[in-house]
C-alpha cells in the first residue's frame, strides 16, 4: 500500500484529501499540519509521496521542500504541491525544487482524483524501474582488464559469464586480492561488491584511489538499499544495482561501455529509458502550475503550420556524453494565450521563453533527482526564428494541446553525441 504524508494546515482540505486517498485510491495517509511536523514524520518513517501545501505556519511549503531537496535521504521523494491560484511567483520558485504535480485549491474531487491517480501510477512505474540496475556511463572501455571483486563466488561466476565477452576478466574473492591485482597493473578497472571480506568495499576503493598512476575505474555493485550510500561515498565512477538476473546485469554493464557507433538517441534511451516521459511530465506540470492550464499530449495531427513562428530551445547535457536539444514551438496565437495566462504584461515571445526556462529547470531537477547527471546549458538558439516547416519533423514530435484555451505546442527533440566528433544529430519523437 502506498504511504502518503499529507501536509496542510487546513483541516477541511486534509479531511477531503485523506478520504479520497483512503477510499478511492487505497493509500495509507499520515497527516501533518505544518512543515516541521512533516519533516519530523519523514525522519521517522518512509513515505512514497508527500502532498504539501504552500502556505502554512511555522515552516511553509517552499521552505519544507527546500529542506527535503537538501537532505540526501529525502532528495528523491515525490512531492505534490497544493496551491491556490494567484501564487504564480511562488509556484515558479518551487518548480526548480522539483515537484511531481500540483493540486489546485479549492479541491475539486474529480479533478484531484484523476491527478493523484496519475501521480500514483508514475510512482509505481518508478518503483519498478528503480529495481533495475542503476547505471551512469560511460566509464569502461571494451577489452579493458577488469577485476570482479565480490564475496559471493556464485555472483562472480554469473558476472564473469555476462561480461566475459567485453572484458579481460580477473577474479577476486576479497578486497586484498583485488588490490593486489590492481597494484600490480594486471587490471585497470574493478567491479566492487559491497560484501567484500578482509578489505571491505569502500576501504578497497579508497586504497585504489591513492595508488599512483592513471585513474582506475571503480564500479560499485550494490544492493538496492545501499545504492545511495555507495553513491554518496564519492569513491566510485558508477554504481550498478546488484542483481542475479544476467540480462539485467548485462544491460547495466552495456550502459557503462563507451558507445561505439551507437546512435545518440539509442544511447539516450539506454541511459535514461524514461526520458521522453519526463519531458512530457515537465511540460504538463509547467503548464499546470505556472499557467493553470491542462496541457494534454495529443496524437492528433495539428493543421499545417501549427508548429508556428515562435520557437525556444532547451539544451541539456546528459552524463557528460550527450546533448539533448528540446525545441518548443507554437503559433503566435497560442503564445499570446500563454502570455495572457501569466500575470503581468509580457510579449508572446517572452511567454514561450518563460515556459521553456521552466520546463528546462523542471526536467533538469527531475533527472538529477533520479540519479542522472543532467546539466542545462545556455541555449544559443533562443532568437526568434522564422517559420521553417521543413526543419521540424512534426511526425516525430510530441504535440500538447490545451483544448479550452486553443493552445497548441510542439516539443521536438534532437540528440547529439557530446564529443562532437561525429556530430550526429538525430531527430526523435518524444
Amino acid at each position, binding site marked *: 500500500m502506498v504511504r502518503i504524508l499529507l501536509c*496542510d*494546515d*487546513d*483541516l*477541511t*482540505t486534509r*479531511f*477531503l484529501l485523506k*478520504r*479520497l486517498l483512503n477510499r478511492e485510491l487505497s493509500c495509507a495517509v499520515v497527516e501533518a499540519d505544518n512543515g516541521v511536523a512533516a519533516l519530523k514524520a519523514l525522519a521517522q518513517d518512509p513515505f512514497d509521496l508527500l502532498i504539501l501545501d504552500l*502556505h502554512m*505556519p511555522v515552516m511553509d511549503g517552499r521552505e519544507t521542500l527546500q529542506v527535503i531537496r537538501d537532505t540526501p535521504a529525502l532528495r528523491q521523494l515525490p512531492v505534490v504541491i497544493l496551491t*491556490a491560484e494567484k501564487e504564480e511567483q511562488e509556484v515558479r520558485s518551487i518548480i526548480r525544487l522539483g515537484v511531481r504535480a500540483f493540486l489546485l*485549491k*479549492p*479541491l*475539486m*474531487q*474529480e479533478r484531484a*482524483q484523476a491527478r493523484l491517480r496519475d501521480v500514483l501510477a508514475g510512482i509505481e512505474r518508478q518503483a519498478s524501474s528503480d529495481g533495475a540496475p542503476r547505471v551512469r556511463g560511460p566509464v569502461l572501455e571494451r577489452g579493458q582488464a577488469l577485476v570482479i571483486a565480490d564475496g559471493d563466488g556464485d555472483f562472480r561466476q554469473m558476472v564473469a559469464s555476462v561480461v566475459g565477452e567485453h572484458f579481460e576478466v580477473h577474479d577476486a574473492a576479497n578486497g586484498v586480492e583485488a588490490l593486489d591485482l590492481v597494484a600490480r597493473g594486471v587490471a585497470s578497472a574493478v567491479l566492487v561488491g559491497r560484501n567484500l571480506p578482509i578489505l571491505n568495499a569502500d576501504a578497497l576503493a579508497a586504497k585504489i584511489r591513492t595508488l599512483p598512476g592513471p585513474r582506475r575505474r571503480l564500479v560499485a555493485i550494490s544492493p538496492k538499499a545501499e545504492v545511495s550510500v555507495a553513491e554518496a561515498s564519492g569513491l566510485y565512477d558508477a554504481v550498478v544495482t546488484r542483481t542475479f538476473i544476467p540480462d539485467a546485469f548485462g544491460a547495466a554493464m552495456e550502459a557503462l561501455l563507451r558507445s561505439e557507433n551507437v546512435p545518440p538517441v539509442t544511447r539516450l534511451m539506454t541511459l535514461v529509458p524514461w526520458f521522453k516521459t519526463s519531458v512530457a511530465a515537465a511540460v504538463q506540470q509547467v503548464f499546470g502550475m505556472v499557467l493553470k492550464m491542462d496541457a494534454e499530449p495529443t496524437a492528433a495531427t495539428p493543421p499545417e503550420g501549427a508548429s508556428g513562428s515562435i520557437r525556444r530551445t532547451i539544451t541539456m547535457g546528459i552524463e557528460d556524453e550527450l546533448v539533448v536539444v528540446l525545441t518548443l514551438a507554437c503559433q503566435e496565437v497560442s503564445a499570446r494565450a500563454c502570455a495572457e495566462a501569466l500575470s503581468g504584461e509580457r510579449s508572446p515571445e517572452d511567454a514561450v521563453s518563460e515556459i521553456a526556462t521552466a520546463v528546462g529547470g523542471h526536467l533538469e531537477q527531475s533527472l538529477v533527482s533520479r540519479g542522472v547527471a543532467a546539466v542545462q546549458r545556455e541555449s544559443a538558439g533562443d532568437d526568434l526564428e522564422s517559420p521553417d516547416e521543413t526543419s521540424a519533423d512534426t511526425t516525430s514530435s510530441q504535440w500538447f494541446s490545451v483544448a479550452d484555451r486553443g493552445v497548441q505546442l510542439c516539443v521536438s527533440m534532437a540528440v547529439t553525441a557530446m564529443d562532437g566528433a561525429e556530430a550526429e544529430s538525430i531527430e526523435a519523437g518524444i
Partner: protein
Amino acid sequence: VPSPGDVFSSDDLLEATGQEIDLLEELRDIFSGESRRALDGIRLSATARDTVAVARAAHKLKSGAAVVGGRAVARLASAIEQAALGSELDAMAHLVDELPGAVHALNDALEAFVAAHRTDESSGRETA
C-alpha cells in the same frame, strides 16, 4: 450584500465532495470548528495589530471556506489577508468587523443544506 449563492454555493460544495452526501455532516462539523477558531484568531491578532498572524489565519479560513462553498467568506478572508500583508491596518480592521456575520451566515447556510439532505434521506427511506 452577498447573494445567497455567494454566501453558500452548494455546487461548489458538491464539487469538492464529489457529490458524496454522507460526508457532509462531518465536513460541516469540521468547518464549523475551524472557522470559529480562525475567527477568534483573526480578531485577537487584529486587535494586537499582528498582521502576520492575521494574514496566516485569514489564508487558512479562505481555504476552508472555499472548500465548503463559502465564496463570500473566502473573498472576505482573502481581502483581509491582502490588507494584513500590506499592513493596511484601517482597511484590515474594517474587513475584520464584517467577518463574524459572514462566517455565521455561511455556517447557518451549510447547516440548513445538510439538514435538508438529512430530511431528504429520511423521507427517501420512509418512502422505500
